[in-house]
């Protein structure tokens, strides 16, 4: 019984860390999809880029870990603005098929670029010493880095929620998600708003990719491999919502960890079955507005 309890605690702990990372990566996707209705399958590219930036900055230039995290956020956000202005913005009215094809094309390009620059092997993050080792809590030992992940992501999530719920920018974002044309009609510059929001979301994905480089290993096929999970978080959580994807991400993180721990022979089978069941029950996701 004691052994079972301790494995439950361990699964919930690791699952939460995983879920938090999934959320930090996917939340931007939920907001941008909800706002512009843009099907951005290439969102994982931003997360992968964050991971590579962190590793390259620390490995090649000796940048300290916190600064490398910040770099991952800033560089990915800046890069995404360029992409958004140059390419994405041409396709807002182009229909779902064009968007799907375009973003798949971006994934192919990103994978090839990653292979050329970093090779096909998965790269490991050289963690600083103060994040290694164990962290004692309630008489148990937890890996310090995972504790840091959960705490840091929680702070990020708190800041994000505060930003969206309590600031002027957040109010404009919510208005644009609820009703784009109406938001434009009352004088909100939705184009600029979207560029900023897109950059924030992509930057968060980059940060999430950098933070979670240990859980979602950084290697060139990253955008394809984890795409299903990012999409599940968004689709199950509900488009344009902040709370929905949070709950979906934690559910997926914990249940995926549990499946891999107790039923490894089934792999991620149950996750997909549960996703299908949830989407059939509520096609717009758990917290999306039902059509």
């Amino acid at each position, binding site marked *: 019984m004691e052994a079972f309890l301790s494995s439950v605690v361990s699964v919930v702990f690791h699952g939460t860390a995983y879920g938090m990372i999934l959320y930090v990566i996917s939340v931007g996707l939920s907001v941008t999809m909800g706002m512009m209705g843009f099907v951005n399958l290439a969102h994982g590219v931003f997360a992968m880029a964050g991971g590579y930036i962190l590793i390259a900055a620390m490995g090649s230039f000796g940048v300290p870990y916190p600064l490398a995290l910040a770099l991952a956020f800033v560089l990915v956000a800046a890069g995404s603005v360029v992409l958004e202005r140059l390419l994405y913005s041409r396709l807002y009215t182009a229909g779902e098929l064009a968007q*799907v094809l375009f973003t798949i094309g971006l994934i192919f390009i990103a994978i*090839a670029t990653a292979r050329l620059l970093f090779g096909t092997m998965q790269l490991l993050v050289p963690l600083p010493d103060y994040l290694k080792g164990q962290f004692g809590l309630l008489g148990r030992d937890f890996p310090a880095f995972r504790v840091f992940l959960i705490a840091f992501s929680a702070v990020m999530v708190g800041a994000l929620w505060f930003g969206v719920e309590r600031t002027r920018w957040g109010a404009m974002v919510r208005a644009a998600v609820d009703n784009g044309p109406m938001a434009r009609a009352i004088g909100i510059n939705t184009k600029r708003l979207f560029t900023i929001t897109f950059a924030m979301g992509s930057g968060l994905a980059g940060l999430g990719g950098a933070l979670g480089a240990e859980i979602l290993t950084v290697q060139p096929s990253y955008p394809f491999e984890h795409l299903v999970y990012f999409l599940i978080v968004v689709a199950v959580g509900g488009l344009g919502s902040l709370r929905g994807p949070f709950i979906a991400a934690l559910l997926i993180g914990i249940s995926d960890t549990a499946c891999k721990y107790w039923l490894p022979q089934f792999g991620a089978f149950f996750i997909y079955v549960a996703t299908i069941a949830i989407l059939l029950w509520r*096609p717009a996701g758990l917290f999306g507005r039902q059509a």
Partner: protein
Amino acid sequence: MSHQASYGATARVGWLEWLPWLAALAIFLALPEYMPLGARILVYILFALSLDLILGYAGIITLGHTAFFGLGAYVAGILGAKLGVSDPLLQLAAAAAAAALLGAATGAVILRTKGLTLLMLTLAITTILLEIANKATDLTGGADGLSGIVVSPILGLFRFDMFGKTAYLYCLLALFASWWIVRRIVYSPFGASLAGIRENVTRSHAIGAPAYARLVAVYTISATMAGCAGALLTQTNQFVGLNVLSFEFAGELLVMLVLGGVGRIYGAFVGPLVFMIAQDQLAKQFPEYWYFGIGLLLVVVVLFARGGLLGILDLAVARMRGVQR
């Protein structure tokens, strides 16, 4: 839009439309060393054609069409390798039936949704199949792939030779039959109602078209064809690997179709042909640049040439005619 096949256009098979078949036969006679590549191209054309039917005509955007291809490939392979059913036509029929069943069952469920949810569901279903194929190693060989597939001569007469001549003609016949069926569908009132559903579901409902039933029907037909294509690939290669169910493969299929042109039957012929020849020439020497290239190609096609190669051809023809007048 002279090259776009649809209801209301002249349904007779024009002389231009016989050209691909003549070319295919000419290649058979003139270039025997390219038979294996040729058979693969024919299989991918069939697969792209099945996707064109639902994506181009019915407007169902799917990332999971490889589910049916992969199922067909594995059904034929398992029959030949594990269950001792070596007759190719039986394998093909079983693969088609399995894919049709899966198509009808999943289509009936997922086609009630649309947009991101639909996209997600098609992806999830394929991923489940991939997971099963990966874990059920006794049946599928898992990550090592399924080999040792026995395929006896077709009708007991035509052996699959090592030069791939039989396989080539066999695939050509299958493609010809499917092309005939797709043409009939596209030029029929049923095809017209699909285009109507693609353009505006609400209005289709308003004129009394049973949109959902039509979509399930065409989804099932398309799945059946994809399953056949999968079985043909298995029989030609006598090997099935996990990649038939992968997302990369689904992406490549989309590239092939979009390159040729969506919603115009022959786009599904031109795209795979150009793609596969380019891949044969370039992919082995420059794998990274190849991947980069197909990504760039997709982006460029979407931004500048939505109609694909045939769309460009249409434009060129229209411009030349304009000059003549």
